[in-house]
């Protein structure tokens, strides 16, 4: 493992982790305020990507980035107002079920409107190409901004690793969003009301604040964040109908690992998972290598060869769930959780 590979993997992991956290933060906020797990959260992420795709065709990427999240946020708020609030009196299981039904519906509607194939959602011209290139010449390591330098193609044995500009943009936007959310939550009046409503909804209501409206606001805000993540994720990864399910399960794993209702835990878990996953994808080691290292020989005839020979890159996709199981066995309340149950 050389330095350039390490740096690029770390940056890729961070960008995925920050994207996950944009989703997980909204989900955690909604969960800790309303006790509702929004099963359709990842579906709003998907809808955000698709809506932004269409807006990009009509208005350009920057308008799409600006307009799609509030639009999806409005949809989320409307769902909270007209469907979720109605089933609130039936208890938590129906609340979970109605968001499950919504995820079903959104998937079908997306397939109906945009078709079942993956869309070609490319970044705007400004953000295409690499932000910088790490040039690994046989005798020196250097960093070049913008397009890869000529040395990459002319010098023999040169290894060049690029970091896409759009990923960097996504990371920057995610950090900016999170700082903004943090400021809103801690420095504004509505943020204080939200924080108070987290723990003492009755007292807040007695002081004359409209708690149901605050809930609607949080739900809408959370879905808008998810949609913003969708705009970034749709370009960075892929815009297709299965994107919701793929990300949704990982986000659930993130907030259980971080501890239910803990924003700090969700941050650590999502960034950690992103980095671990990005390093795992690039590794072709397996348990077999470990056995060889400690002096045992493993052949295709040995017991459980299928398991020992699986490469780490192959298990990268299930690492979040493996970690989830491990966390539940050894620390059931999650990394930063405060209570069990």
């Amino acid at each position, binding site marked *: 493992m050389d330095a350039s590979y390490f740096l690029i993997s770390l940056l890729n992991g961070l960008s995925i982790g920050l994207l996950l956290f944009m989703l997980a933060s909204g989900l955690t906020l909604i969960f800790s305020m309303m006790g509702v797990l929004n099963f359709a959260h990842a579906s709003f992420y998907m809808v955000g990507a698709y809506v932004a795709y269409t807006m990009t065709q009509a208005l350009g990427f920057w308008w799409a980035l600006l307009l799609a999240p509030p639009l999806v946020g409005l949809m989320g708020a409307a769902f909270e107002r007209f469907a979720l609030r109605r089933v609130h009196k039936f208890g938590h299981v129906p609340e979970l079920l109605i968001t499950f039904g919504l995820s079903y519906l959104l998937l079908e509607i997306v397939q*109906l409107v945009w078709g079942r194939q993956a869309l070609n959602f490319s970044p705007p011209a400004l953000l295409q190409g690499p932000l910088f290139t790490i040039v690994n010449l046989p005798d020196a390591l250097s960093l070049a901004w913008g397009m890869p330098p000529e040395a990459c193609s002319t010098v023999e044995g040169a290894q060049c690793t690029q970091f896409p500009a759009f990923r960097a943009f996504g990371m920057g936007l995610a950090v900016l969003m999170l700082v903004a959310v943090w400021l809103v939550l801690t420095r504004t009046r509505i943020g204080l009301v939200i924080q108070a409503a987290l723990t003492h909804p009755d007292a807040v209501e007695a002081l004359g604040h409209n708690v149901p409206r605050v809930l609607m606001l949080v739900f809408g805000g959370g879905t808008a964040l998810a949609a913003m993540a969708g705009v970034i994720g749709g370009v960075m990864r892929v815009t297709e109908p299965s994107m919701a399910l793929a990300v949704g399960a990982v986000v659930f794993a993130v907030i259980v690992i971080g501890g239910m209702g803990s924003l700090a835990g969700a941050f650590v878990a999502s960034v950690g998972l992103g980095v671990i996953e990005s390093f795992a994808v690039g590794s072709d080691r397996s348990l077999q290598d470990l056995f060889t290292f400690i002096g045992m020989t493993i052949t295709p005839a040995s017991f459980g060869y299928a398991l020992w020979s699986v490469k780490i890159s192959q298990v990268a996709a299930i690492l979040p769930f493996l970690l989830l199981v491990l966390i539940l066995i050894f620390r059931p309340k999650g990394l930063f959780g405060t209570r069990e149950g």
Partner: protein
Amino acid sequence: MASRTYYEFKPYNVGRWVVWGFYALVMLVAPLMFTSSLSMTMLTQMGIGIIACLAFNMLLGQGGMLSFGHAVYSGLGSFFAIHTLNMVSAGNLPLPVSLVPLVGGVFGLLFAALLGFVTTKKAGTPFAMITLGVGELVWAMSLMFPGFFGGEGGISGNRVTGNFAGITYGPQVQLYYLIAIYTFVCTVAMFAFTRTPLGRMLNAVRDNPERVEFIGYNTRYVRYIAFMASGFFMGISGGLSALNFEIVTAEVVSAVRSGAYLLFTFLGGAVFFFGPIIGAVLMVLALVLLSELTLAWLLYLGVVFTFMVMFAPGGISSLIMMNLRVASFGKLGPLLSSYLALGGTGATVLVGAAAMVEMTYHLQLNQALGPEMKFMGATLNAHSLDSWFGAVFVLTVGVALFEVSRRNFVAQWGQTQEEIEREIKRREALA
């Protein structure tokens, strides 16, 4: 005892015998009435679905646990059953084919014991999320180990391996009766489970876990046992489906399958024991017939499900029971005309909405066939303004009329319920 709500003649509970006898009779007679090969396939699948949905409801309805990854246990049961079947076919294992589903059940139980140990650490919402994660884990693993799971092509087998007194399971009807027997026995066993002290504790854990802890029970332990029992029956249903289809692909452990169990168990109704049976019948009808009829069936299903959660969270079985209650007080007659109005206007809404949905699907998926399409005998042109205007018109009129009749119905229903409450109070006063 005046508070008995059912007729009881000691030493036998006649009502119960009649209901169970009827259930057995239906299963016995069904293949004689529906003899076509399509209906035979559907009947066998219904039997399998009934076991799976009832087992799912042991958690959802009786334990208040919402599992998003329950296909794992039926799916793994299927895989172990098909491997067992192949060992039997190869002559390596002296086991009657009739007992292969039990092997599926045992492995369903084993995996429920293994994975349930982790998932049942939590209840409520975290439980749902963790089952989803575990489901994804198993699903991803099924693609990682093609040796056991057969990769894309799956594992196939052949159920016709032996001949015991003419029973080879070659003809579908023989398999049907095997499945019918399994279904009946499993249904009885799961109903009996609800009557055991453990089943009652499970209800208590669902309703008030804190209080259960105070009394001295370990709620997690109760959930864990129920989870294992449910896994066992899921495994049996998986083993039966392995025998039925003679091929098992990785799709059986997917989140889509888990979602289907959840959706239809809920539609049938989680509150009553018999609800999931209705759900399973609907599941097979939807998967086999509705999916043939229209491309948009998943959309319709989602809409029905969402409305059910919002307006009738007890599912179809609770709607039936509410109307039976009204009927037992002799007040159903006046409501019938309202039902007729609701049904008629509802159908109008459905026709309008369905026409628009079908036209959109047609544009999206069948572009090559041209804009013309058949819809309920009429020819619609998905590109013409007329068809869209007609659909919108029908929809608008339907919605308006439906709203009028709905308001009438709500008022009438509320009044009837009040009368029934008064009647109950009057009877209590007399007794």
